[in-house]
């Protein structure tokens, strides 16, 4: 094989460049936490990982169940019963809209328009 050295060096550089995002992801410190203020209650309706990933889908399902099927109670996996209501159930613990909802939504570049209708606790009180 001709030019073994430059070719090998080239391959190594190429592999490093292409896998760079993984290394930055694993060892980098660039990732900034959202810095949300968590509510004081110990647990949410379901576990944290589920709520973090699926809360909007859960809210959509709650809405359809409550409005269309008249199922206004949710029995969680741990057996606890919750009234299905964003304003009266979720916001009772998650009282800090600016510190909790908004911070995370801004850092993830999502702009849900829940609050054009639903009343943010601090605003409505």
């Amino acid at each position, binding site marked *: 094989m001709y030019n073994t050295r430059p070719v090998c060096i080239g391959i190594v550089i190429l592999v490093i460049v292409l896998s760079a995002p993984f290394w930055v992801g694993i060892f980098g410190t660039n990732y900034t936490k959202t810095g949300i203020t968590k509510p004081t209650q110990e647990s949410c309706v379901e576990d944290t990982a589920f709520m973090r990933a699926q809360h909007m889908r859960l809210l959509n*399902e709650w809405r359809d*169940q409550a409005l269309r*099927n*008249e199922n206004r109670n949710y*029995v*969680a*996996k741990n057996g606890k019963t919750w*009234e299905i209501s964003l304003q009266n159930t979720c916001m009772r613990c998650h009282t800090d809209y600016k510190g909790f909802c908004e911070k995370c939504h801004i850092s993830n570049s999502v702009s849900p328009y829940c609050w*054009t209708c639903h009343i943010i606790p601090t605003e409505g009180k």
Partner: protein
Amino acid sequence: MNTNRRKFLKVAGLSAFALTSGLAQVALPETANAQLAPGGYGNSPKSLHAKRWAMVIDTRLFKSADDYKPLIQACHHAHNVPDIPGNKNIQWLWVDTYDHVFPDDMNEHMSAKIKGTVFPLLCNHCTNPPCVRVCPTQATYKMADGIVAMDYHRCIGCRFCMAGCPYGARSFNFFDPRKFMAEPTNPRFPTRMIGVVEKCTFCAERLAQGLLPACVEASNGKILFGDLNDPNSSVRKALAENYSIRRKPNLGTQPGVYYLI
């Protein structure tokens, strides 16, 4: 060669059968209607249920338009209904004169008592609601208990329902309703947003908590609310003992609001 063809046809036939008979469907996971939440859904033991909710308004017990004011206030207060000056106001419960409420009754020589009386108006929660038929997004729909409900999340503001409703029971939010209230009167209930249609909901959210509708509660028994399918209910008894009329009965919408006159 012959046996190969035979085998091939057998396999092809079985495959075609499996694909078309729904056997393949069983193997596929049902993702379309799958429930996301790991828990279960139900309703509160406190909630009120009926086969067909209906309202009977004893208009004989109301003396003037002022008598309806506390009811309208209770309703609009409970649901954060704004008061917008002009002809773009939002109304869930309001009053009008006899000839506007019952326009089919074309008698020029009504008794002075009827002529001067005002009648309360609200969504009739029809058995055959035209608004539900014309809604392109199923934002308005009829529930199993007869209530014609609204899901404002789905409303695109096309106003077909307003054109479809023969009772003018629906209001369109031409403006952001929050601009017309200092702050929402009931912090436990949402407001609406600009560009959606709204109307009376027979207080479905109050029924779920075991409470009667706000106007019924404020009327001190002058408005009855109950199950039309239950012969022993207060509404059925009132209808059996009194002469009642409904708005525009010839349209066949079968309103759920009855007037005793």
